[in-house]
């Protein structure tokens, strides 16, 4: 049962990422992979929210499987982040390396901060 739920919500998460990332990248005309960034940051915030809600409370396993493992896991992505960083580095010279470094460091710091904000709100709710 859990596997079916994870699969179904993983499919929804991947679809949502495809839509959001494509839309953001289309609206924000930049070479910076901002589509993946927006997806990952909103995903990190939502994961923090879920963690904040679940910490110290009794949350059904199936809800965690659906929302956390399935949807948010399928929605956010690590592999695209890494490949986009390598492609930025290979785009040439010092500028490319700087872009790659920015694309690695910024999402990490803002991502963990987004989890923190989500967690605080989740605890407070």
């Amino acid at each position: 049962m859990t596997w079916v739920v994870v699969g179904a919500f993983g499919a929804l998460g991947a679809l949502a990422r495809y839509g959001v990332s494509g839309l953001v990248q289309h609206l924000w005309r930049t070479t910076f992979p901002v589509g993946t960034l927006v997806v990952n940051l909103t995903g990190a915030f939502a994961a923090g929210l879920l963690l904040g809600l679940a910490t110290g409370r009794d949350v059904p396993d199936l809800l965690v499987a659906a929302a956390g493992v399935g949807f948010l896991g399928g929605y956010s992505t690590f592999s695209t982040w890494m490949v986009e960083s390598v492609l930025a580095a290979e785009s040439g010279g010092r500028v490319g390396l700087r872009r790659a470094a920015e694309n690695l460091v910024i999402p990490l710091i803002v991502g963990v901060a987004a989890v923190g904000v989500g967690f605080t709100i989740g605890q407070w709710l």
Partner: protein
Amino acid sequence: MTDRLSLSTSITGRRRFAVAAGGALGAVGRALVTDIVERTESDVLWATFIVNIVGSFILGYVVARHAGRSRSSPFLIPFVGVGVLGAFTTFSLFSAEVFELARTGDWILAVAYPLVSIGAGFVAALLGIRFGGSK
């Protein structure tokens, strides 16, 4: 009716289907790795680490391989890249784990885990692209 029919068989519609189908497989694959790691009674951090590094390597390989071929399927990247590997790897769980490590006061891991993950993920993606690009 004909509109709906043409929509469901359009390239866009089929791409979306490929993303969703791949996403289901990727998410289940990740849950499977987590299950196996939990059975070995290792730290669950290893599950996230493994899926993220392996996924980064394969995505790099697939992207480079696809770029080098003129007659590759238009559904390959939506299915394998966006769907399977996008869902197999995870940023939300990764960043939530880093936050939890910091919150519970495990400062060494809170610094080491993200640095090692990003370093290894970057190298894995780079190697994947190199392997996929060579003929």
